[in-house]
């Protein structure tokens, strides 16, 4: 089973991104379960969305304590990532610059400038689809075609722009895959 969490701020689309990622894995023939932590949602507040992916129906109904991978839509939320990721996991951070002041993680921490990708695609601050693309590119867990189709179907608005951001994010993620693990580990 694969467990993924997406950390964002209210209004950034973490929950919709999680549902799109679920739909993409579903298109790829996998069983999925997507859910979100609720309570006091408001713009700017931290939001966690969670996804399980498996080859059999998912029967677990509890929080994800040790995700395999984490997508962080706002670099300011990185310190909220539990340091208990599974070995071999990836923390993918939407960040412009070099990381600083990060807690030590056993996982790889990779940065992608999803903000710039989203802005180029005409999406303003909506970084979630660029991040999904980068995740697929960096991990190789998901065919781009399935992700693009899920983004096109699941985007509440500006479908073409979101698909473009997803593809550009995928290319950026592919480039990250070639970054040696030691070079970016903190």
């Amino acid at each position, binding site marked *: 089973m694969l467990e993924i969490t997406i950390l964002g701020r209210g209004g950034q689309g973490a929950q919709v991104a999680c*549902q799109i990622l*679920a*739909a993409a894995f*579903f*298109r*790829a*023939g*996998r*069983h*999925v*379960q*997507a*859910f*979100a932590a*609720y*309570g006091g949602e408001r713009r700017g507040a931290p939001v966690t969305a969670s996804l399980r992916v498996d*080859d*059999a*129906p*998912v*029967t*677990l*109904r*509890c*929080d994800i*304590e040790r995700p395999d991978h984490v997508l962080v839509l706002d670099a300011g939320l990185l310190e909220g990532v539990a340091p208990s990721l599974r070995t071999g996991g990836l923390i993918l951070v939407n960040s412009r610059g070099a990381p600083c002041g990060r807690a030590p993680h056993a996982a790889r921490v990779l940065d992608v400038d999803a903000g710039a990708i989203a802005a180029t695609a005409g999406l303003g601050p909506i970084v979630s689809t660029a991040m999904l693309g980068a995740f697929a590119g960096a991990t190789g867990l998901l065919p781009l075609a399935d992700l693009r189709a899920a983004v096109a179907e699941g985007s509440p608005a500006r479908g073409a722009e979101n698909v473009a951001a997803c593809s550009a994010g995928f290319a950026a993620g592919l480039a990250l895959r070639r970054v040696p693990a030691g070079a970016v580990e903190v």
Partner: protein
Amino acid sequence: MSALAASARTATHTLLTGDHAVAHAAALARPAVIPVYPITPQTPVLEKLAELREAGALAGDLVPVESEHSAMATCIAASLAGVRVFTATASQGLALMHEMLHYAAGARAPVVMVNVNRTLAAPWGFWADQTDSLAQRDTGWIQLYCASPQEELDTVLQAYRVAETVLLPVMVVFEALYVSHALEPVAVPGADVVARFLPPYEPAWRLDPASPRGFGGTATPAQWRANRLAMQAAMDRAVAAVADAGERWGELTGRGYGAVEGYRLDDAELVLLAAGAIAGTARTAVDRLREAGVPAGLLRLRLFRPFPAAELTSALGMAHTVVVLDRNCSIGSGGIVAAEVRAALHAHDETDVRLFSFLAGLGGVDVSPEAVVGMARYALRPGPPPAESLLPEAV
């Protein structure tokens, strides 16, 4: 390639949340009247029903009402007029309906309602807790507890068949967020399958100006008593009706259901017992206990009213230890399912079974497989079980 990978392309599976799955089920049952009053976390059920109606997939009337009490009053009136009805609620809404719940059952109106388990105030919350529906256990409603969006959809359709067979209302129950808002693959059956399973509702009696009759007039003590005994007899028949509906649904869809569901029970000496979402998590706990050499199994309670005492005690087999996980609490008594299980074991002369009652997941508190394993290990220690319910922190 997984079975899903093959079937996903047949377009029978689609990704749905638990709330949206029951909306599809309700629409497939073709209710004529659907009183609606929103409450978190049930609101997406009503939103999806409104969408389906706009899309032409639902012919029934959505009736906006001013409270949940009115929603149930409307359900009863329409049901007694001879049509199929549906509504959904949660928590405070169910509590406000309480008076009308008794009325629906006493009038023998086969209403089908979904309740999303949510904490009751005070304090305010939106979290999973089964006390709201379990507190309605004496109203004369059949209660079925579901553990997944797929099961919710399947159970709503079975609920109509059961309700219209024994003429009692049915509550289909599942927990807030863990099930109601989980997005999962769900097989939505075609209208042809549903039509073979659920014939049009044709009651023997109905409110009809052409043939005047009344429901709910004043009864003498003897008539009132006869009414309650008839309800009790109907509840007794409901056990078989639930089994029949689950079996028939299985024949049509490949997804059969019973009053209880067992997992690795055959040679189990320790059985975890729960209703609802935690049972899903407990499956993983059973696997881990088995890997560690503990002969553990799981019994998921699906039917709570009528309480399937015979089915439950039979399914427990040779187990000597039962660990009941209750996401609910009758303040002053403890775990509600545990109390029912104790009574069932006693009634079936299984008095040497050691029963451990854990209040697990109250108020939506997360229950991990590790926590469930810890409860099982606590129960494996020598010595008699405590008389009172335990919190997982006691482990």
